[in-house]
């Protein structure tokens, strides 16, 4: 079925008319938008039609990445923007549907979602939650999680969530930094048919984070975890007297909305604060222009509440899109479980990861033989690099439809490379660079370190954009912000990815350029692993690296190198105990596939550990700049101890 003119085409036409411009194609449009941020961003904000108040000008004050401010005169309320009626969407239209692994279905209309949200917002206000407070959640995918988040945003409080599978230590490490006032929590979750209780996790969090004054259970369970703090059931916060949308206050464009966490190679996870306006504007652009999502669409993106794609999917309500959440294992009780949901709920855009695609391939599943997917019109993939083989398999075995490889991250709560409703798909590539985001390549193989529009090298952004972090938590002088994104290449945003951009503007993400690990599509900071490992008796120091492993979901596996105090070889019982501790204190994703004892870790002459040299060694690729290492001989030992991954 041929769709009508895309939103991107309509927006482009409106931009041409208003500015007496003519764009030869997307590359031309993209360049113009990057060169005219004071015109492009207000035009986009105005085009979306969301309820905002104040003047659209100036769109941007300052040109420096740190000291800039987008839309200083605009105010909005994120929740109102998502639940407003101005979209001309029927209040009876489905807003959110949640399907569990055992097939339980819960669904709310836009009217019901609005009513629930305003009711819970009233209760939160009565509990003393005010603008600027932090509200955190240990939440599985559920209607309640969505309502709690929207209620929190309605009051101008800042929301941060993790999924219940995460270990207590990791949750304390994250939430403890924020000094939250309220905790929403599930008390158990179901995975692969087994119900797992997280009372101990909740208790440990409450013991460690004393700022929490109120706990609200997201579950319907009758019994409550033991605590000195008053714990409310979900039904207790469904207030009979409710606010109205009109009563919600507007907040500045850059008012903190979400805190996301990103782990680096050292230290505790960074708390990245994203503003309401920047987040929503970026999401609206990605949904409506790049994804052509609207009120006729149903979007299912495979995500947990701890990943930015959960927040990203949530914002699709502002485009009238019906969102479907999946709770539990995608492969339980049947390996085709998720496919059934896509078919039965008439999903039109399915968001997934290379890990899931690889799982389907390895399982011998041919989706097109099982279901017709009549409404499915695009598949999006993110988390790690989608290979050409995956692209081809999707078209041949799933459905002949656009395969859109999108990539960005927690750092900017959106995407830098995306799909496009009209451009052709080149297997392995993303279709285009995100509109208005000036993505370039810092070519590291030219010797000149030039920043260019095409080539291969480090992904950088050369102009500020609305969805960059408004600040990092506990970083009043922006020290962490500078060191995280701007120290490596002063004056530009360094994202931490390697990219190739062709002459015609087609981008392809090649992988990480820093020490961050990507395991099964989930980004993990080595510090989260090493903090635990280095506490283990007998361990002198350690290094976590990623090894290419084509048959693993996500295409890589985690390798842990250990330098021990003693010369004795590693006992199996020691390795198993170490893995168990990582699974318990962090998560299963933090458990290495390979644990190897090595005599030393590679270091540069100034004593800095070189993860890149170790990574190249285990991947059997040439180690560039061997002369920079003080102990290059350990690379051979690392190769001897770490076998090649099976092909």
């Amino acid at each position, binding site marked *: 079925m041929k769709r009508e003119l895309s939103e991107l085409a309509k927006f482009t036409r409106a931009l041409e008319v208003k500015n007496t411009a003519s764009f030869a194609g997307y590359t031309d449009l993209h360049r113009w938008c990057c060169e005219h941020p004071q015109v492009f961003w207000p035009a986009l904000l105005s085009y979306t039609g969301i309820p905002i108040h104040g003047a659209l000008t100036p769109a941007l004050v300052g040109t420096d990445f740190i000291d800039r401010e987008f839309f200083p005169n605009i105010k909005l309320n994120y929740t109102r923007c998502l639940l407003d009626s101005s979209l001309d969407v029927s209040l009876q239209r489905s807003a959110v549907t949640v399907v569990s692994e055992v097939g339980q279905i819960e669904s709310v209309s836009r009217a019901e979602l609005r009513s629930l949200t305003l009711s819970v917002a009233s209760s939160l206000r009565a509990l003393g939650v005010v603008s600027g407070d932090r509200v955190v959640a240990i939440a599985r995918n559920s209607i309640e999680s969505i309502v709690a988040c929207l209620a929190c945003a309605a009051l101008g409080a800042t929301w941060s969530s993790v999924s219940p599978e995460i270990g207590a230590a990791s949750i304390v490490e994250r939430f403890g930094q924020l000094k939250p006032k309220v905790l929403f929590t599930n008390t158990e979750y179901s*995975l*692969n*048919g*087994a119900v797992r209780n997280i009372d101990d996790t909740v208790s440990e969090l409450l013991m460690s984070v004393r700022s929490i004054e109120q706990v609200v259970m997201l579950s319907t369970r009758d019994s409550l975890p033991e605590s000195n703090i008053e714990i409310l059931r979900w039904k207790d916060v469904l207030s009979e007297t409710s606010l109205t949308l009109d009563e919600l206050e507007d907040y500045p464009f850059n008012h903190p909305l979400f805190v996301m966490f990103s782990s680096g190679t050292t230290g505790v996870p960074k708390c990245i604060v994203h503003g309401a306006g920047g987040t929503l504007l970026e999401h609206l652009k990605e949904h409506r222009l790049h994804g052509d999502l609207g009120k006729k669409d149903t979007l299912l993106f495979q995500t947990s509440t701890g990943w930015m794609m959960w927040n990203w999917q949530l914002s699709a309500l502002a485009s009238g899109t019906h969102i479907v959440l999946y709770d539990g*294992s*995608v*492969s*339980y*009780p*049947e*390996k085709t479980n998720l496919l059934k949901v896509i078919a039965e709920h008439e999903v039109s855009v399915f968001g997934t990861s290379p890990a899931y695609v690889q*799982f389907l391939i*390895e*399982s*011998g*599943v041919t989706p097109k033989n099982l279901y017709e997917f009549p409404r499915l019109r695009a598949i999006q993939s993110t988390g790690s690099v989608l290979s050409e083989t995956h692209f081809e398999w999707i078209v041949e075995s799933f459905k002949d439809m656009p395969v859109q490889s999108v990539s960005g991250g927690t750092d900017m709560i959106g995407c830098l490379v995306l799909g496009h409703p009209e451009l052709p798909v080149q297997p392995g590539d993303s279709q285009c660079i995100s509109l208005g985001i000036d993505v370039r390549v810092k070519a590291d193989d030219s010797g000149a370190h030039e920043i260019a529009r095409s080539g291969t090298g480090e992904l950088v952004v050369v102009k500020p954009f609305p969805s960059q972090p408004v600040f990092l938590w506990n970083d009043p002088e922006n020290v962490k912000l500078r060191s995280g994104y701007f120290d490596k290449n002063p004056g530009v945003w360094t994202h931490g990815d390697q990219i190739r951009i062709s002459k015609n503007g087609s981008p392809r993400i090649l992988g990480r350029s820093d020490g961050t690990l990507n395991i099964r599509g989930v980004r993990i900071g080595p510090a989260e692993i090493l903090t635990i490992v280095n506490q283990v008796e007998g361990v002198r120091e350690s290094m976590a690296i990623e090894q290419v492993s084509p*048959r*693993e*979901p996500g295409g890589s596996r985690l390798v842990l190198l250990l330098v021990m105090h003693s010369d004795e070889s590693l006992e199996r*019982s020691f390795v*198993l*105990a170490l*893995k*168990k501790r990582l*699974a318990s204190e962090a998560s299963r994703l933090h*458990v290495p*596939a390979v644990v190897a004892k090595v005599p030393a870790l590679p270091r540069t002459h100034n004593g800095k550990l070189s993860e890149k040299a170790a990574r190249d060694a285990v991947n059997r690729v040439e180690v560039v700049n061997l002369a920079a290492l003080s102990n290059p001989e350990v690379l051979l030992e690392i190769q001897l101890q770490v076998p090649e991954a*099976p092909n």
Partner: protein
Amino acid sequence: MSEEQKLRQLIIDWLDDNYHFGDAESLIDGDEERSFLQSGILDSLGFVSLVLFLENSCSVSVDRSSLSPENFDSLGKILRFIIPLPNYKLG
């Protein structure tokens, strides 16, 4: 040690290395027919990884249409399915 015992140990070790970190034997609890799925020992994603491992370790090829709970949902079922496959050789 018989072929069956060797393969059994290989599977237990794999479960320990990748999923249960020393607890696999106690989870199976002497019941070789205990359902992996129902007892949370393995999920469908895990089945795929286990099959890839067995293909590498036992020199066999598993037809993906055979990748079902009927053949892989317990230790006993895996042993009965894998050992008779053509070219089966451990190590």
